[in-house]
């Protein structure tokens, strides 16, 4: 009597996240006339997710304080695997060692997305950049992050650049003297 189908929950989970995110983007495109505004909002949403996600990441992985930016890059790489199920390569370090890129062979967020002609400038995956920025801010690192290559726009890979700006002072927890 009962249906035997049991879904692969991990797969459904990521499909659900990707579809929900896609619908949100489509809704934003409808709400805001300018694709650049949408890109900005997506970054902001990513930031809000990042500042909360970091707690989960730290508790799940028991990660200690990062030694240097190289170490930080490795940990974000782990986060990609944990949350998006992909393992990006960390490459293209700047000579000064303050900038690097994540290269994704496939981006689960955009796998089933086709951008309409009038939205070619939309930075669909900006949520990832925002999340990296938000998460690192919570561990006292001020960074910039942006998309360099995008498979949605026909590039071979997706490349996300991260640039270290400065170390933030340890903020006192609010309400404590």
């Amino acid at each position: 009597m009962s249906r035997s189908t049991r879904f692969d929950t991990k797969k459904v989970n990521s499909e659900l996240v990707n579809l929900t995110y896609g619908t949100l983007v489509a809704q934003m495109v409808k709400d805001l006339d300018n694709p650049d505004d949408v890109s900005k909002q997506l970054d902001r949403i990513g930031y809000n997710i990042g500042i909360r996600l970091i707690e989960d990441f730290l508790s799940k992985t028991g990660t200690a304080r990062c030694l240097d930016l190289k170490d930080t890059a490795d940990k974000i790489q782990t986060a990609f695997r944990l949350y998006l199920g992909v393992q990006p390569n960390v490459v293209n370090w700047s000579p000064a060692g303050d900038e690097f890129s994540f290269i994704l062979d496939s981006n689960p967020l955009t796998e089933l997305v086709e951008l309409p002609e009038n939205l070619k400038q939309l930075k669909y995956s900006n949520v990832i950049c925002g999340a990296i920025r938000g998460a690192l801010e919570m561990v006292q690192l001020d960074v910039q992050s942006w998309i360099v290559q995008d498979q949605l726009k026909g590039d071979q890979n997706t490349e996300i650049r991260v640039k270290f700006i400065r170390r933030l002072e340890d903020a006192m927890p609010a309400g404590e003297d």
Partner: protein
Amino acid sequence: MADDILFDLLHSEIINYTLRNVDDNEKDKNSDKKDEDLSNLEYIGFSTGYRIIERLTREMPRFKDELDTLKFICTDFWSAIYKKQIDNLRTNHQGVYVLQDNAFRFLNRLSNGKQYLEVAPRYVAFTCGIIRGSLANLNVHCLVTADIQSLPSCKFHIQVQRV
């Protein structure tokens, strides 16, 4: 599972985004509506449900009838998305179904108290949309509302629209 938290956080952000947008619009009109406008939030759920059901029913045998479809929503579908089955399904066999979840995923983190009860509709609107969208694509056209008496329990009322 790692993705769980991602969906929870995304869900909160969608709530924030849709409410912020409504706020902005209402400031322009100087209106002081009491009930929050959750229609955009519901619609995002609808559109997500409409699409995901296409994927989830790909390997399923054909549904026998409306009740069979609703049972699928309460069991396999609900566990895939909300990590547990619906606790109770009632129907009057005339197109009204009541789905009761005693520990609804998006209400679990709200404390029980009157002030939280007031914001609770925000946490169920997306899901009302998911149900309506999934059923609409399965050709069961309906209205879905949620009824929250005590957290984290929630009743989803489905009223099938006969044409």
